[in-house]
């Protein structure tokens, strides 16, 4: 285990902790998350989350315990998913899939506006989806440089990774309403 800063004498503050994958023993938890042993310490029900889920989703993975505010603690971070062995990678990827539930939009079929809502129909990574979005500025945000993330009325997330890759009609349909 390496730290960026040396702890001050008498302090429990450890600074940012990067974990050495070779020292990690990961097993699937039967109930939730994964169990991780580092040296003598075993952490149960560990979850994984990304520091850069948009710009670099394969790097800087935080391993955490406790699900509620106040209880949550970071065990440490893994710099790169590539550093892990195949078994560890699978477990971490599974945990990441559990954390992030997103739809990637492959094709926009229609976008219509009615009574302050935009009604979308799109082919997505999770199949054909119809969803409604409040027609407000903060419901469609930038995603990386050329992408957009759309939050529907239930806060489900739909991603267009690159607007430039939409065909001209889809682009026109989208930017007619989402001009920002």
């Amino acid at each position, binding site marked *: 285990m390496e730290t960026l800063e040396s702890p001050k004498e008498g302090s429990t503050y450890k600074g940012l902790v990067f974990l050495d994958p070779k020292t990690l023993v990961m097993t699937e938890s039967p109930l*939730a998350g994964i169990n991780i042993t580092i040296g003598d310490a075993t952490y149960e029900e560990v979850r994984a989350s990304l520091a850069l889920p948009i710009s670099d989703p394969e790097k800087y993975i935080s391993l955490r315990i406790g699900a509620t505010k106040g209880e949550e603690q970071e065990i440490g971070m893994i710099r790169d998913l590539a550093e892990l062995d195949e078994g560890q990678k699978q477990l971490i990827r599974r945990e990441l899939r559990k954390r992030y539930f997103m739809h990637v939009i492959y094709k926009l079929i229609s976008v219509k506006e009615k009574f302050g809502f935009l009604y979308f129909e799109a082919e997505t990574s*999770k199949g054909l989806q119809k969803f409604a979005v409040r027609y407000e500025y903060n419901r469609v945000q930038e995603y990386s440089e050329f992408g957009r993330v759309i939050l529907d009325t239930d806060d489900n997330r739909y991603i267009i990774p690159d607007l430039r890759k939409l065909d001209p009609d889809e682009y026109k349909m989208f930017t007619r309403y989402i*001009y*920002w």
Partner: protein
Amino acid sequence: MLRQPLPPKFAAWLAEHNVRPEDVLLSTSNDISFEGEYSERWVVVTRDAVMMLKETDGVVEAARSFPMSEIEAARLDPRVGSGFLQVKVRGHWAEVARFSNARAIWFERIAAKINRFKETGAVIITEEDEKERNRCPTCGLLLRSATDICPRCIKKHRVFGRLVRMMKPYWPWAAGTLALVFTGIGLDLIPPQLSRMLMDDVFVRDPNRPYLTPEWIRNIIGTNPVTMLFWVVFAGMAGVQVLRIGLNIIIARLSVTVGTKITFDLRHKLFARLSELSVKYYDRHQVGILMQRVSGDTEALHGFITQSTQGFLVNILLPVFIGATLLKMNAELTLYVLIPAPFVIVSTYYFWEHVYPRYYKYWDSSSKMSAMLNSVLSGIRVVKAFSQEEHEIARFDKLSTNLQSARRRVDKATSTFYPIVGFIFGLGGLIVWFVGGRYVLEQRYGFTLGTLTAFTSYLGMFYGPLSNLTYISSWLTSFMTAAQRIFEVLDTEPEIEESDKAYHLHICRGEIEFKNVTFGYDRYNPVIRDVSVHIHPGEMIGIVGRSGSGKTTFVNLLCRFYEVDQGGIFIDNINIKDLHKDDVRRNIGLVLQEPFLFRGTVRENIAYGRPDADIENVMRAAKAANAHDFIMRLPDGYDTKLGEYGSGLSGGERQRVSIARALLYDPAILILDEATSSVDTESEKQIQDALAVVTKDRTTIAIAHRLSTLRNSDRIIVMDDGRIIEIGTHAELMALEGTYYKLVKIQTQLTSEPTVERLQLEAAARK
């Protein structure tokens, strides 16, 4: 739904496993697998188990099942875009099911119901539990918030009727305005008729045709009737113009008068009603939305009233009157005039749907560039200090390019659209000149050159209002929705009703008793559970506990911001439900973490609860609150004007003003809710000194995270999960070595910054 009928396959599986339909307490579908793929799954809660059923290759199985006897609690574990229903089994949280955010509301309720079942052994599903959030209960249309008005179901005629009734006190004004609108439209019809007269009777008069002017006018105008008639018609035209302008001014002034009077009344009624509504109402409605109702929606109504007289009515009436006039002049030619009308309507629709939205992009690009300029120029020292000039220039160029392309798109669209629309509008004129011109040449229908020019003049007044009518429906809907939102607030009854036999509490001793009080902001999720405590007059009580343990709710209930669900709260042995609301609050002084000061002078803020207090008492209160000295250092002393939220003072100073306010109020019961937690240590010490004076001989309830501030309390209440888990003096609780003891230990270890005690010790050492 919380008790959703199970599909036959799943129901059959339950039957095979000896679960009868009546044993199912809760059943709801979830939409995704643990891996995040869409698939149908069912969560079923029975008296004996919580399970998740799924179907694989046509075979139903229980993918997860936990015996109810082993379940300690249930909760939701929200993730990004989805969440998990979890149950606590033998100290560990186990995942039961994963759901997308679309189903979150149902699983929130399922978790609450399981917890309630563990406490009471029963599951009660109310009508409220089965309601979908943010959907119109009638048509299912999505709404912005659960309390929003459905634009599809709004009964426009009722809202309109109510608006008209609201105008009742101003009916002479409204009737006068309406009469003038009609007169104005009548005047609009005159000039083309005068121009016709000018053409036919003056410029190209047929000597065989008799004068249209009466004999008596000709007698007056004498020997050269043509010239004189010219002057008369010309004077008539000028007169109509002047009259029309005069009328326009009067109509506008009248409608503004009526509009502002009605919106003033509405604003007054709205604010009065909002002040009466309970705190619970404010929990359900965002302050921003309510502010929008008081300012934005009333303003929209003002717009509606003024537009009605100047825009809508004219747009509706003018095409009708002109259409009738044209028909009367020549029915056949009028039908030709109508040929471009559909194009006018289509082109207006096209403008609003395709051309106008391009302005959004332009405005957005423009405001982004302004925002960027503002931030970079204001922070130019940072830019220079980090040598980021090149980077900022590149960023500016990118925004500037966006603005350029947005502007180009707008200008290209408008430079094509407007000439085409101009042509469509002109098409009517061409048709009239062509067809009408032939009528004149062929002398058909007695059609004169004057009639032809009158026809073309009317055309100009016909197409404009027609194009405006295309969007009148959506304008009306937005006005009606605004009106309905206002009426909804006006129709909301205050939830805390005063009993007819409410007692007055003239002299309060400050004795408080909570008897088996249970309360939840949502009925199925109590945050105060069966709390009983007796507080003696003059006692100082400290309340500690984690965030969400129920501390603030405890004092909210005492102030009667909410009604308890079960049990009762007594002040001086009288249930607060039987006391006048004002009497309860008059005897309670509240000092909050965020001192809420209003725009006004320091004096007005201290005397907020007792506006009649004389300046000496205000100063005495300020002195006791350790505020007098800093107030006297201000250039304008007690007359210092404070901005909104007390801007102009530091956090500690604002807090001391709020303590002075509480002290001047002289309540029998004082509540301090984290009164010192957001100020620096030096200010905290001054506030603590002030509080020592204020709390003397007064029943005081103090909530604090910094336990050191509660050390002098007569008793300390430790709350957890809505219950009182420990109660006693500091020494007793320390001896108990329970939760309080642990909290004190943690804080002693954590606190490295100077504390009040440390400051006091340092001060003592200096002496």
